[in-house]
Each structure stands twice: as structure tokens, then as C-alpha cells.
């Protein structure tokens, strides 16, 4: 046990802080009923009550408990953002590592295509995809994933290029390792540390983009709660209940911030192995 605690204490502070913030949200995401004091869709009290002991964040425009709605919203928000980040990560790193490792003409063509995708402003491309393919949740996940994919590909391509020149890769090539073998057994495992840092930044951007979409009314549809659509509702009642949106807003920032902290923590953890760029090198704003 003490060895376990010692192992935890050796981890970088941002990593621990990020995990500490994220864990309650993951619990909310999987077991919202455990933490929520009320039902998210049931009318419990008078509308637009301020914070009180019964309703810690107050009630919404028809008297549903805001805290419970914030907690249930984690289910949609965290699921969509993690799924989208996973889409971007898997496709992006596959393209990037392959292109960087192979190099040559394949690489040039792939990167030109990535440049074209990068020319579309993030939200605009996501909105375009949603217009054409519909508003279902899976479309949203793919749309957010696809708009974040090009920067991931760009980033992991750099990794592929760097690793291509490493001694162990050359050794494997000389001893007859196939391209596929080298990519899966040598390039992927050795770039994983760096890519994990990028993945946590991706997750952070995904939270912000998916909240933006549901703020715009294109994500989870009412009455289903999401942090974005709660903030939208907050604007309508800002003169009557100024604190309405604070809970949802804080949730978005905490989750997005937790991912960035985890990324920064991982970066510090892996820094001894190899330099993996700075926080700002992989950060994506909206």
C-alpha cells in the first residue's frame, strides 16, 4: 500500500490534478444516478429558483433541478467528446505515422490533402458535415472527429519522420522486417508517449467543440440535458436567473482543463525519455 502511495506521489502534479478533476465526471458519465439528487427530466420545484440547500444550483425554467441536469449532461458530453477524440486519434495517427514513415511521394500527396482539410475552419466544416449528413449523434461524433483529424495526422507524421531514422528501426529493416511489422512493432509503440500527450489535447478540444455544437442547438436535443444547451437556455433568462448557466459552464471548463492538465502531466512524465514538444505546440483553440 505504501509502495502504491509512493508510486502515486512520484507522478507529476498536473497529471494527478487532471485525474482528480476528471474522475468525478467519469463517474457521472457512467453512473449519473449515483450522484444526482433528483431526476434530470422531472419537475421538482418552482421554476428559476436561485441556489438553495435543496437545489444547490437552483432550478431551470420549468422547475427541474439544475445540478441533476448538469450531472446527467456529462453522459452525452463526455461520451461524444471522447468518441470524437478517438475517431480523430485513430484515423489521424494511422495516416500520419504511415505517411511520415513511408515518406517520399506518398507522404507529399497525403500531406497536401491534409493541408486542404486544414483550410476549412473547424466549426464551419463540422457544421457543413452536419448539414449534409444529418443531426444524429453518430454524425456529430464523426464530424467532430474528422475536423480534428488533420492536425493529429500532421502531428503524428512528424513522429513517423523522426522514428524512421532511429537505429532500432534501421536494425529491424536490415534484418528483414516488413513495413507493416516495423510500423506496428517499432514505430507505433515508440511514438505512443508523444501521441498520448496529443490525444489528451484532442479530448480537450473535442469537449469544447461538442459543447459549441449543442450550444448552437445542433447537439443533444431538449429535453435531454447537455452543458451546451443549458448555457443556451441561460441566455434567455439571464435577467431573471443570472446564475442559471454557471454550473454547466464550470463543468465544460473543468473537463476541458482536466484533459489539458493530464496532457501536461504526461508530457512531464515522458520528458525524461525524450522531448515531446511543449504544451502550446499541440494545443488547439476554437
Amino acid at each position: 500500500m505504501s509502495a502504491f502511495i509512493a508510486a502515486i506521489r512520484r507522478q507529476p502534479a498536473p497529471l494527478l490534478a487532471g485525474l482528480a478533476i476528471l474522475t468525478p465526471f467519469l463517474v457521472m458519465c457512467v453512473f449519473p444516478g449515483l450522484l444526482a439528487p433528483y431526476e434530470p427530466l422531472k419537475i421538482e420545484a418552482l421554476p428559476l429558483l436561485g441556489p438553495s440547500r435543496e437545489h444547490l444550483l437552483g432550478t431551470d425554467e420549468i422547475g427541474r433541478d439544475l445540478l441533476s441536469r448538469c450531472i446527467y449532461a456529462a453522459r452525452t458530453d463526455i461520451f461524444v467528446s471522447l468518441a470524437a477524440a478517438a475517431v480523430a486519434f485513430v484515423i489521424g495517427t494511422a495516416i500520419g505515422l504511415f505517411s511520415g514513415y513511408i515518406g517520399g511521394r506518398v507522404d507529399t500527396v497525403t500531406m497536401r490533402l491534409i493541408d486542404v482539410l486544414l483550410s476549412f475552419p473547424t466549426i464551419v466544416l463540422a457544421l457543413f458535415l452536419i448539414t449534409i449528413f444529418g443531426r444524429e449523434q453518430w454524425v456529430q461524433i464523426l464530424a467532430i472527429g474528422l475536423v480534428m483529424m488533420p492536425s493529429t495526422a500532421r502531428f503524428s507524421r512528424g513522429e513517423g519522420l523522426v522514428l524512421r531514422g532511429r537505429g532500432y528501426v534501421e536494425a529491424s529493416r536490415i534484418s528483414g522486417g516488413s513495413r507493416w511489422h516495423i510500423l506496428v512493432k517499432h514505430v507505433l509503440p515508440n511514438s505512443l508517449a508523444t501521441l498520448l500527450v496529443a490525444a489528451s489535447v484532442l479530448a480537450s478540444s473535442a469537449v469544447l467543440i461538442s459543447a459549441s455544437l449543442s450550444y448552437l442547438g445542433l447537439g443533444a436535443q431538449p429535453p435531454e440535458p447537455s452543458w451546451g444547451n443549458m448555457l443556451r437556455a441561460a441566455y434567455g433568462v439571464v435577467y431573471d436567473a443570472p446564475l442559471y448557466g454557471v454550473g454547466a459552464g464550470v463543468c465544460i471548463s473543468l473537463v476541458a482543463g482536466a484533459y489539458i492538465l493530464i496532457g501536461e502531466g504526461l508530457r512531464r512524465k515522458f520528458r525524461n525519455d525524450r522531448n515531446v514538444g511543449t504544451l502550446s505546440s499541440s494545443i488547439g483553440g476554437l
Partner: protein
Amino acid sequence: MTVDVAPADSPHIDEGASPRRGARLVGVLGQLGQLVAVLFAVSLLTFLLLDALPGSAVDARIGPLPNFSPEERAELVASMSKQLGLDKPLAWQYVIWVKNAFTGDFGLNYQGIEVRDVVGERLAPTLQLGIASIIISTVGALLISLLGFRTRWRALRAGIQGTATVLLVVPAFWLGLILVIIFAAELGWLPSAGYVSFSDDPGENLRFLVLPAVTLALPQLALFYRYLDAGLRDTSTAPFVTASRARGLSERGVAYRHILPNAILPTITVIGLVAGSLISGLVIVESVFSWPGLGLLLVDSVKAKDYNTVAAIVLLTAFAYVVVAFMVDVAYRLLDPRTRRQS
């Protein structure tokens, strides 16, 4: 938008791997031809996505047209199909579409109004808001980073850095709400949303502009600050700075004459790229403050499934990005003699 900057320690990565988009677009492969190629690919992709519409593309793209009788609409669909060359191969349809797009003809929106006119009247409000935010964020970031750099109070500097980091995880619609709660709901100084055109009433126009412009500017400011701050700190340890101190220049002179000009360079790229993809922020901020610009039009058109308008805005904003990125790269070359020597 996403801004990538090369990791400081990447000697293995060749020129082509530098993730500065502007530099990649032009610096590596060189010329205007590259710009044209990207524009071509962007328009092709937009066209292909539009073509992926379920059902008859024209039927979907024309929309319900409330002012038209069913017969008139059917007639319009038929004539549009012919005009767009839907009986011809896909490549030919693309040529027609691009030719029309270049002459500003994006067809009719779902209400039967020319997309060109609808988009045109949104340009002025969008440009006003966008330019105002870039001015605020650039000037603000410059002043604040110099303050943080030159101050002796560590607490002040840490406070600025902390705020800049926090702003990166506060989305615009949440930041806007905070500002509206404080300045509109509580203090009552500024209107919470709306728009008055400058020609109608300049004073009111500016009053309505303040909150959206600041909401749009603050995250940019935080981003610019982070680059400027890093630039200032990196540059301050450079040998030429030590040399100018050794020549007896005042700290002030060193900071403004030698450190600042060199530290600003990387930030110029970031400012340019942010300016080029301003639409991402405008989409949210214009929705928050009911500012009648392109961003709000885009959101409304997406909801109404107004394909022609959405496609026009997508193409326009992607073009704007590519052209601005190109101009930034040119500006960078003019400002930094080292890049000229390399190429």
C-alpha cells in the same frame, strides 16, 4: 481552429515537416501555383460533399420555396437541373458549379432569394466585429505581455499567465454569458444582444459592438499572449541581447529595440492564422449576441438545411483562410530576412 507550432527540439524533422501552415503552403513548394492548387482542391471537396446529399441534389438544394406554387417549383427544379448540367458527368457539373461560384452565383437560398445578396449584406457586420476583435486582442496581448515581461512582481506575471491558460478552456458562449451577467444584467452598462448599423447610429453601433468584440477577442488575446510571452523569454537569453547590454544599452532600450521585434515574429503567423479562421469564433459569438453576420447566417442556414447558402459560406471562409495564410507567409518573408536567405 488549431494552431500548431513545431516542437522546439525537432532537428530530425525536415523542412517539409514544419507545421507552420503558411510556411508549408508556400515556403516549401514556393509559389502562387500552390495557392491555386489548394483553392481548387477546397472547391472540389465542397462540391463533392454537396453532391453527397441524399436524394435528388437539386431538389434538396432548392428547398421548400414558400413563395412558389408546386408547379413553379417543379419548373424551377427542372430548369436548375439543366442549368447545373445534372445530365452531364460529375466533372462537368463541377466545372459549371465552380464557374458560377467564381462569378458570385451560388444559386437561390431555400426561400428563393439569391444567395449572393443574402451573404453580401452580412459581410459588413462580420468584418466590423472580426476586425475589432483582432485589434483588441493584438494590442491587448502586446501591452499585457510587455507588462508581464518587464514587471518585477512575480505574482502579477503568474496571475497573467494563469488567466491566459484558463481562457483557453472557457468557450466563447460561456465567456460571453459571464460578460453579459456582469455588464448587462448586473451593471446595466451595455446591451446584452442586438445590432444597430453604423450608418444608422454610430454611437449605438459601438455600444452594441463592445461585448461581442471583447468576447471574441479574449481567447485570441490569451493565445497571442502565450506566443508573445514565450517569444520574449526565448529572445531575452539570445547572444545579441547580451551583446547589446554589454554595449551599454538601457534595459528599456534592449527590451523595445532588440527583444520585442524578434519576439513578435512568430506571433505574427499566429495572428494571421487566427484572423484567417475568425469565422470559427464568429459562428459562436454572433449566435450569442444576435449579431447579424456570416456566422449567424451559417448557423441559421444549417438549421434550415439551406444547402446553397451553407456551401457558399464554407467556400468563402475556406478561401479566406487560404488567402490570408498566403499573405501572412509573404509578410513573414518580408519581415524576416533569414527566411529569404533560406529559400
